[in-house]
């Protein structure tokens, strides 16, 4: 029971960990979306050029 009073306060590290996770993974997802849009624009342009 005593240990309940001595749980170390490491909540800031947990927040930092999940912030890092959110930034890195959403950053990658954003890069996928942006690269897709860029490639799609180019595809439409070149397709028109061919026609």
């Amino acid at each position: 029971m005593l240990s309940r009073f001595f749980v170390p306060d490491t909540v800031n590290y947990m927040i930092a960990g999940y912030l890092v996770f959110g930034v890195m993974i959403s950053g990658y997802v954003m890069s996928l979306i942006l690269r897709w849009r860029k490639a799609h624009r180019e595809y439409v342009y070149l397709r028109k050029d061919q026609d």
Partner: protein
Amino acid sequence: MNEKPNLLTILDVVAGLMILVAAGLVFFYVPVEVMMGSVQKVFYFHVATAWVGMLGFLVAAIAGVVYLRKGNLLWDIAGNGAVEISLIFFLTAIVLGSIWARPIWNTWWTWEPRLTTAAIVELIYAAYLLLRQGVDDPERRARFSAIYAIFGFFSVPLTFISIRMLRTIHPVVIGSAEAASQGGFNMDSPMKLTFFFSLAAFTVFFADLLWHRIRLGQLRAEVDVLRIDSYSKGE
């Protein structure tokens, strides 16, 4: 270019919901571990991101084998996509581990077997992406990448077994830990549920991202063909 398949849209929704549920379990369901405090909750996404990293490197090696047998460039696109996604997830796992280590080991980084082999794996696959850029011919690039991904994969099980075979301070949560390990704990039922659900959620998320990445690779390949066509017409 084909329209986005309905199945992919469904997979987007399922993957997103599963990640949200996993985060909900971590923050609102699983109990705080008494020896480490809240930072222990980093463990669930740390292992899940590392798992996706290793899974992707395995997918890349399998795609490499299939490419060498069939010669279809789609397998090169799949392998390249798997490595790209895994590199991000594996780096995330390393950073999350480092954040966990600061209050538990009293250091951000130490050159013990797990951390060292993980850093080597990350560098091997970073080199894969860099070296691909140096080969212009798609067939040669695909052949080189396939062979590299197959041989590169030997570094992955080495990382996995390093904490089970060598003297290390990195804890082993599933299986027997080395006596010198620091930060280990026994999982109770809510912890096990959160842990295995996170693994499942990240596996679905990986499949979703890989499908998107393959579609991007295919679109780029089509753009390259059109560009060459329009260039040769212009001459």
